[in-house]
């Protein structure tokens, strides 16, 4: 299924309650490796639960807290509500 291309935005800017797909990681190799290993790599679906500075997200049934700097390095594409 394909959807119209959405502009990428950092995870910290995702509104609470929205679900998005992780498209690109921009941090250091170190950070990218760890976040991919934790299952938050490219193509994973992430739902923002709360937070602007420190984000609380749901990925694959786990709750993960990310601080602002970490969330800035995760670029996501907002999914239209019909696709969730």
């Amino acid at each position: 299924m394909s959807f119209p291309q959405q502009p990428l935005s950092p995870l910290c800017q995702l509104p609470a309650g929205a679900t998005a797909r992780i498209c690109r990681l921009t941090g250091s190799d170190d950070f990218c490796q760890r976040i991919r290993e934790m299952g938050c790599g490219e193509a994973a679906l992430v739902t923002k639960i709360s937070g602007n500075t420190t984000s609380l997200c749901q990925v694959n049934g786990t709750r993960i807290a990310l601080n602002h700097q970490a969330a800035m390095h995760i670029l996501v594409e907002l999914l239209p509500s019909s696709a969730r």
Partner: protein
Amino acid sequence: MPAQERPPVYAMVGNPNCGKTTLFNALTGLRQKVGNYPGVTVEKKIGTAYSQHGRPVPVIDLPGAYSLAARSPDEAVLRDVLFGRREDTPQPDRIICVVDASNLERNLYLVHQILDLGRPVIIALNMMDVAVRAGLRLDPRQLEQELGVPVVPCEAVNGRGLVELRLAMSRSALPLAKHRWDVPAPIAPAVADLQASLIEHDARPPLIARAEALLLLTDFDTMRVAGSRQLSARTAELLAGWRRRWAGEGTDWSGTLIKTRYEAINRLCAGVLRRTCETGPSLSDRIDAVVVHSVWGWLLFAAIMAALFFSIFTLAEFPMNWIDSQIAALSGWVKSALAPGDLRDLLTDGVLAGIGGIVVFLPQILILFFFVGLLESTGYMARAAFLMDRPMSKVGLHGKSFIPLLSSYACAIPGIMATRTIENAKDRLVTILVAPLMSCSARLPVYLLMIATLLPGGAVPAVTKVGIMFVMYALGTFGAFGFAWLFKRVLFRSAAPLMIMEFPPYQRPHFREILRQMIERGWLFLKNAGTIILGISIVLWFLTAYPKHPDPAASPAQQIAHSLAGRTGRLLEPAIRPLGFDWRIGIGLVTSFAAREVFVSSTAVVFSVEHFAGGKRADVTPVRTTLAAAAWPDGRKLFTPLVCLTLMIYYVFAMQCMSTLAVVKRETNSWRWPAFQTLYMTGTAWLVCFVVYQTGRTLGF
């Protein structure tokens, strides 16, 4: 015993929060040995389980990790033990992978890496109940068929599945995993190249060598810890060559490899895992709505912290007084049983005072561990770190530094030991450097004595005294945050720390587990700090007892003035005179280097306080009266309110604890950081005291 009859050594591995430790405790009961991996403050736990036939089976509980690509000392220890890189721990024969069934894919990532090692593996599919509640249906048999290794569903918390796990562990032979996955073709030559070198130059068995080659090629920032074997020069050179080549080509093999592993895991899970129904928000989700709420969350946090401090400072008082009286009684007994002399003094003033000085803090430390254990086992600690992340980020640290700093209010030693969960080495070091600024309970007796001298008797309301105490705590806390900010800007310039932290689901607290942890950690504290303080107390006793005063009838005060400690105090006087301290206070400063509370007892001796029972005690009245009368040779009062205040401020900042320095040395693996810590803390103490005292004098106080 022939080799084949030796029981296999099991290692237990798993992600953080997968219930690994609960399972380990359930399997091994109280038959555990807790220690440290030499050179790193990572807990080393070895227990004994019993097979179905009653044979003892050694089990090593390894620290939780998400991956073999280590990012913290904890994870580095796990990796090094599994690869057989540590001299101090045998390479395990078999591995029990504990997997959180409610989060199968992510947990299988580590399993996938471990299967590369080619060792026999048992998978303990833990938290089956949580998975069912989350609307997941798992088929352990299918997983067993797919992987070819025993898969045991269990609920460690409720004791389910333990018999089956023991049965699996009792099997004389375990099948090897059907672990087939294709390493991406372009990196295969590099893997083969490194594998050959690891076999030849680093004496690794072939399968371990392959797994290690895969890891080395993709783990860019390889974390090294003390006590682990280094790579041979030849292998290191080969590795650097491949890395340079790939860096030039601009390919990200690390990302590709992780993706390949996850694809293999997803294929595996397709047949094993089924989502039966869409469940609404779980209980944990509903609790989180309040606990991390921007208003309610903070109110709850404040209430929990208030309860914690209230317990540490009020509830602990009763057992502390009891311990004091027992030590005093024992000391009295030794005094009556032995003839006067150096041996008796060494026993009472050196050994017993040293033991008393450390045991007396045990109640506070146990209460702290109880709260930390309670908050950890319920899952609240991660939420507290989440809340604290924002204020901590203002000084360049992240939420994970909060727990060590909190522990440091009781004692900096457990605080420094708790920093090992912080992945970033620089953040960890900054947290270690500032942790001793949090006012620990050893400062309390000094504050109490000075406040009592400053504001004698019932003339002033208790609120004023509490207020001064609060100011001292606030001063230390702001000092810690201020220095963290400074160090992050000047010494350890690095990008803002990135924090990724999993929220474990809320659980009912398991008091048996908490009790066990309290005992374990309390014992470790006694062993680590106790041996050092005891040793130093004996040395300090020697310094105050020798050389002997020529007149055998000299009073204790004259003896101290004549001793090495007294001479050091006099030597020190020019340096501390600008702060309003004389050489007698100097002796207190020198002796309290063993532990801050020693200041009270040594002051009592130096100012020859009569009717003083030794140790840390609530009743400081006799000392206070004598101190109030103490004077400079020219007749000026020594302990003016300004000097009392300055002395308290000195203790807020100065690095006056040998045990902390020893732990910092062990943690950072060099004497450089403890030396730096002493310099910056005591330097700050001197400067602040100088400014306060001289300003106070100028203003006429």
